[in-house]
Structures are given as structure tokens and as C-alpha cells.
């Protein structure tokens, strides 16, 4: 039985979380494979929610599986697909089944996904969602009604340290901190200085929140260039692109893992922040390699 994430955050020096992405379909065998592989190696296992606006097996479903297999799930909830009623109902259900960690996100827009004509809900935004969880944590729903059986979630959210321009993003991070979050899992970072500046900014407002740096291995120079151009909030510096370009053919994945591990080591050694959140969607089976290379297993 895994230790509650909430407690790990309070006590452990360097927290490690990873992400598992559900498949498109009701076949949960792969999910279970990933859960078995990772559940004991990480402190918390996030499950994405219709990531990139592509319809998939729900985050809630895989979180239940994680629970069943003895892991510690972090339920990712976006505001894109559900209105406030649906979200509140889902949280009641999740909590009743032992899930007690939530990551609050706005969500990608419908246009990047595969159901491009769907209605975007966005009844709430991520800040409002954080407030919502607090309200429910205190025993009431959004309309002020008493709950017969409340919830108690450990609340986290995301942030984008490489946003350009950065100031508007920071204003939003401040709002999230003021609303009250226990942990932040950032978007992918590749530059320590950027991460350090971000951490300093957060610490000035909230000394207790745990910051987990987002680690997304890049497996080739072309992928890096593509991400720089097309993935908002990601900036891979030229020297890393060069390093990737020089890697011999066929060794891209290994190089990506090497770079990621190197970053994790540095973050840990220099105590830049409180841990890392590893996102290697589609290659979840490689996450243990990263952990090993970073000396975290």
C-alpha cells in the first residue's frame, strides 16, 4: 500500500512523480502494465485527462486501477470537457474510491485534438477549479449546500516557467498560490536558470508549496525544433538541440534519457526545487531507466 502523497510531500526531500497516459479504448491491459512498472518507483502517478484534447479512457478510470494495484494516483482534471456539476460529482466519486490527490488544469483547446467540432466547456478555469476543491474540502458544494460526506483532496496545479511573455503567467501563478496549492508540477523545463528564477518567485509568495520540475525527454534534434515551434510554453535551448543532433543515428532515445537524467541530478544536487515530474507519454516503460540514470531508484 503506497504512502499518501500528501505526507510524502511534507516529509521527503526529493519527490518524484511520473505520468501515465491512458489509451483510446476500453482495453486497460497496457495501463495496468505501466502501473505495475512504476507504482513502486515513484511517489505519485499522474493520469492525464483526455490529453491534447484527444478522447481517451478517463483519468478517473486509470486512477482507480492504480488504487486497486496499490499505487498512489494523482487525478488530473481539466476544465475543457466538464461543467461545474460534472466536476463536483466526479470528485465525490473519486474520493469515495480512495483517490485524494488532484492536479487542476485549464486544459488544451479542442482544436489540437481529434474531435475538432466538439463544444469546449471551460465552465471553470484552473484557478476557479482550485477554489472549488477547497470549497468542497470544507464540506460544501459550489452552490453553498452542505455535503453528506465530504472530500479531502491534496491540491496541485501546473505552471509554465518558460512562458513568453512571462509576467502574465506569473500573475496567474500568484493567484493559484493565493488560492492554496500543496504542489506545482511545472511544464517541461530545460534551463536551470529559468527554473531557479521561477522557484524564487514562488517561494517569495508561498514558502511551503512543493515545486516539482517538469522533465520531458527530447529524443531528437528534429523533435526539439518541432517542440520549440509548436508546443506553447516549451523552450529547448540551442546547445541541447546541438547535443541531440550530434548523437549517432538510432541513439536518440538514449540521448534524451541521458540529458533528462543529467538535469534531474543537477536539480537534486543544487536543491533547485523539491522534486521532478517525469512525462514520457507513449514511452512510460522507459521511465525506470531515467530514474536509474538519475540515481533515483
Amino acid at each position, binding site marked *: 500500500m503506497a504512502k499518501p502523497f500528501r505526507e510524502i510531500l511534507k516529509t521527503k526531500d526529493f519527490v518524484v512523480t511520473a505520468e501515465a497516459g491512458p489509451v483510446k479504448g476500453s482495453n486497460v491491459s497496457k495501463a495496468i502494465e505501466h502501473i505495475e512498472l512504476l507504482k513502486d518507483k515513484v511517489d505519485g502517478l499522474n493520469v492525464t485527462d483526455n490529453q491534447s484534447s484527444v478522447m481517451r479512457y478517463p483519468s478517473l478510470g486509470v486512477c482507480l486501477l492504480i488504487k486497486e494495484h496499490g499505487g498512489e494516483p494523482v487525478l488530473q482534471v481539466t476544465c475543457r470537457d466538464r461543467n461545474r456539476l460534472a466536476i463536483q460529482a466526479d470528485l465525490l466519486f473519486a474520493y469515495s474510491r480512495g483517490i485524494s490527490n488532484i492536479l487542476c488544469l485549464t486544459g488544451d483547446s479542442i482544436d489540437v485534438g481529434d474531435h475538432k467540432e466538439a463544444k469546449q466547456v471551460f465552465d*471553470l478555469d484552473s484557478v476557479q477549479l482550485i477554489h472549488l476543491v477547497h470549497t468542497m474540502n470544507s464540506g460544501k458544494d459550489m452552490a453553498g449546500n452542505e455535503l453528506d460526506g465530504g472530500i479531502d483532496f491534496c491540491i496541485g496545479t501546473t505552471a509554465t516557467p518558460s512562458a*513568453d511573455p512571462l509576467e502574465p*503567467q506569473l500573475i496567474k501563478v500568484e493567484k493559484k498560490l493565493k488560492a492554496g496549492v500543496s504542489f506545482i508540477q511545472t511544464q517541461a523545463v530545460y534551463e536551470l536558470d529559468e527554473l531557479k528564477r521561477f522557484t524564487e518567485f514562488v517561494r517569495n509568495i508561498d514558502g511551503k508549496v512543493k515545486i516539482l520540475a517538469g522533465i520531458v525527454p527530447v529524443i531528437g534534434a528534429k523533435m526539439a525544433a518541432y517542440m520549440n515551434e509548436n508546443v506553447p510554453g516549451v523552450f529547448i535551448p540551442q546547445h541541447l538541440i546541438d547535443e541531440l543532433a550530434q548523437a549517432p543515428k538510432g541513439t536518440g532515445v538514449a540521448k534524451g534519457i541521458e540529458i533528462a537524467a543529467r538535469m534531474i541530478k543537477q536539480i537534486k544536487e543544487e536543491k533547485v526545487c523539491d522534486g521532478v515530474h517525469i512525462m514520457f507519454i507513449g514511452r512510460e516503460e522507459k521511465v525506470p531507466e531515467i530514474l536509474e540514470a538519475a540515481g533515483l531508484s
Partner: protein
Amino acid sequence: MIIAERKPMEEIMRMLAPYKKVLVAGCGTCVTVCWVGGEKEVAILASELKLARSAEGNEIVTLEATVERQCEREMVAEIKDKVAEVEAVLSLACGSGVQTMAEMFEDKPVFPAVNTTFIGMPEKEGLWVEMCGACGDCFLDRTGGICPVVRCAKGLLNGPCGGTRKGGKCEIDPEKDCAWVLIYRRLEKQGRLDLMRNYYPPKNYRAVKRPGKVQAAKA
């Protein structure tokens, strides 16, 4: 004002396929200003229809009329004689105009030739951009006069989202500005960034219960 865009010709042709005599009806207000449904466009569309149907070997006869405001029963009534002569009406007005026409002439099929898209203004000659979503709960006082409901692609009240692209462009369309970056810049210029630091609770999406109705308070 209300901005509309002409429907693809193919769609219009499909709508009018069974009819041989049609009135092409324009509106002299919003759709004239956005170059889509005024007297000029009525004449052009009528020509296009005639050419297209002639090419198919299925000739069509068109009448033309432009009403000052198609969303006014009295003004629409002025063209009733022309409507009486035709089998169907093709309206270039916004949805409000089309429906008024349809209501006034219930025995005639009335078809929309344009897609009503948004309330907007001309950024420059020939280019209209969305400004207002008619949400019924105006937020502009808190965002320096920039609407987050329609100019933010996700309608966030506590923006921006994490997806802002380099240089302050929107996650969804790199040609569009991130509304929240615009709001930030505007409020910064006015020394009112504290407005952006406030937490804004979830929006009342039922401010206007569709179908909307507004009763003037005084006669």
C-alpha cells in the same frame, strides 16, 4: 456590429435547387457595412446564381430587393409584393433578419445565404475581428476594456492559460494575440494591474437564458 460571412456557393445552390424563381434579399445595415449582404452583394449573388444555374442547365429567375433593416417587420413588409412573386427567398441578412423574413412570409421558404459569425469591428479595411459575445454579463470593466469571454479562445476569467505562444500569441492560432497578454499590457499601461491580480469566481453562464428577452424598463 454584427459580422457575417457568405456561405459557400455549393451550400446555397443546394438550398435553392428545387426553386426556379427566387428573391435575393439584402439588408442595409450590418451586413452592408461588412460587405456581405448589401445592395451590391445582392446584385453580385444574383448574377452568380444565374451563371451557376445556367451552367447546370437549370435556369433560375432572380428578383432583388434590399431592405433598410431586415430585422424590422415594418421594413420587411415593404417588399411583400416581390416576395409574393417568388417561390423562395434567399436572405443575405444576419440570423435575426432571416428569421424575421421567415416569420413575415410564413408560406415561403426563407434561406440564409450568410453565416452570422460575431459582433465585431473592422481592424482595417476588409478585416473584421470579434469583440463581443453577447454574454449578458459584461466583464470589460475588469479587463481594461478587452473581452476575455470571446477574445480569449477558452473564455478564461483568470487567464492566461499555460499555452500562450512566444511573443504573446494564442495557443490555438499563432496569428491571434493572447487576450490575457493584451489585458496585461493594457492594465499595465493604466497602472491598474491589481485588477488582473484579483480572483474572479466562475461566470454566470445563465445571465442570458436562451432564447434571450429584454424588456425595456420604460415606454
